[in-house]
């Protein structure tokens, strides 16, 4: 399996992206911002198709649009209940734009029909070239490093924003920085598991980890570990059973991990204090 170059590329890019997604996802779940990531992954879809329709490389549009929208949501945010609706409204429209770009792209290039949208939506990890895999891995590692660097203050700001602000933690700046990282992760992961499926890599390992331990830094590491292991197992499974698409195999493993964590943490609650 490891002698195949396409599997080597997939493993390299997949490991790095999973690491980033596991780390970012933990904070997303902690801050209850999973919906934001959901919206941004759809934005990534539109960004990629816009770039394709305009004739650029998909990657450029992906990063530019996703990070821009992430920061825009940051400025609209912090208004309690309205948040939810603003995110929903904005991204419903952005998806509509995505459909428009898809139509423009497919009518302009009759040869390239709908395949592009399916690749963007559901990922094409086994089709990565060596150079793309390396670039993907480098960006993902940079995102992971950034998260680790700001982990402590971000944790403080996520758990108790007011106290953190009073202690001089730059809460707003951290919020924006984190949103930009979420945007970059969404854009990045689109290459690996596809715009629609990133959410699983972001939400499930983090959910599982926060079920298994309440100590934040342990949970952070555990979340990254579960994400990376899921990608490895998923890739191996889809190599062994060709009918399984890699995206499905990876997500099936992640979901199973979450269910397992739920089942494992259930009996403990009986004698643990119901605080958590």
């Amino acid at each position: 399996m490891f002698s195949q170059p396409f599997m080597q590329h997939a493993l390299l890019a997949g490991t790095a992206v999973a690491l980033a997604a596991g780390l970012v996802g933990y904070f997303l779940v902690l801050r209850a911002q999973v919906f934001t990531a959901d919206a941004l992954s759809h934005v990534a879809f539109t960004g990629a198709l816009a770039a394709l329709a305009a004739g650029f490389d998909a990657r450029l549009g992906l990063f530019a649009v996703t990070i821009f929208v992430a920061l825009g949501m940051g400025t609209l945010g912090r208004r309690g209940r309205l948040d939810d609706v603003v995110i929903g409204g904005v991204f419903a429209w952005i998806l509509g734009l995505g459909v428009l770009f898809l139509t423009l792209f497919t009518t302009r290039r009759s040869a390239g029909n709908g395949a592009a949208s399916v690749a963007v939506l559901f990922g094409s990890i086994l089709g990565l070239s060596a150079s793309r895999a390396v670039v993907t891995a480098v960006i993902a590692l940079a995102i992971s490093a950034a998260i680790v660097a700001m982990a402590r203050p971000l944790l403080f700001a996520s758990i108790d924003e007011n106290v953190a602000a009073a202690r001089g933690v730059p809460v707003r700046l951290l919020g924006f920085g984190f949103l930009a990282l979420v945007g970059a992760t969404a854009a990045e992961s689109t290459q690996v598991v596809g715009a629609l499926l990133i959410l699983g890599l972001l939400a499930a390992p983090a959910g599982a980890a926060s079920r298994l331990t309440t100590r934040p830094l342990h949970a952070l590491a555990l979340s990254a570990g579960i994400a990376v292991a899921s990608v490895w197992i998923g890739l191996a499974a889809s190599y062994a059973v060709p009918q399984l698409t890699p995206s499905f195999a990876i997500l099936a493993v992640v979901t199973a991990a979450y269910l397992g964590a739920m089942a494992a943490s259930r009996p403990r609650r009986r004698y643990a204090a119901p605080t958590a």
Partner: protein
Amino acid sequence: MTGVFTWNLVADVQEMWSLAFMVNAYRAGTVVAVLAALVGWFMVLRGQSFAGHTLAVVGFPGAAAAVWLGLGAALGYYAFCLAAAVVIAVLPAAGGRGYREESAVTGTVQAFALAAGTVFVALYHGFLGGTNALLFGTFLGITARQVAILAAVAVVVLAALAAIGRPLLFASIDVDVARANGVPVRALAVGFLLLLGATAAEVSQITGALLVFALLVLPPATAQLVTVRPVASLALSLALGLATVWVALFVAYYSPYPIGFWLTTIGFGGYALTFAGTRVRSRLGFRAPVTA
């Protein structure tokens, strides 16, 4: 679509409705708009947009599985959306950890469902054209039978919503007080998610799994910006939903671009204008509606 647009709107509408499939599209669109506007109003009030979006997306693997098994897409939409509603309603409650857990579970359900959808699509070798139609919707192939099913399900959902409407409103606005007054908050939450699932399944059949959200969230959100009085805002949401669908179908018929684009753009345009309008009003010192 390829209709020839003239500025004589009455003649345009007559020409459009001379085609049976456009009449069916209008009938189905009307049913879906009414349902989405009313159920979506409660969804926005309860801050459950993420759950709504997930239920909408889950329709895609359902449809793909049903088509693969030869059962017809409609059955798949209803089965998967309702099953996902049960999962989202029951799993976080078992953990008892509130919103954090709920958002993680919801996200996982959504991603896993989509991944399963890719497998079903791959198994059913219909591939690309089919996938895009399931995701982005089409209003061209709606039959009279489909309209009848849509209408029947819509009547059931609306009747159920009418039956639980008052306690649901109470529970949505203040959970704790409602619970103290003996309102069965938990059962209402599960029941509402089931209604939301059925609605998402209905709307998906017209707009496609990815764009359901536009109809569920935008008209109610706009209406709630304008007024805080529940009945007035429900009625406004209904009117906006109908207007969005009717105008979008009309424009989509006379333009080369897809229905999904027009639906979301018209809905979002209304929302953005209203949002800006309420801002300007409050700047100028008029009584501004409470928005949070």
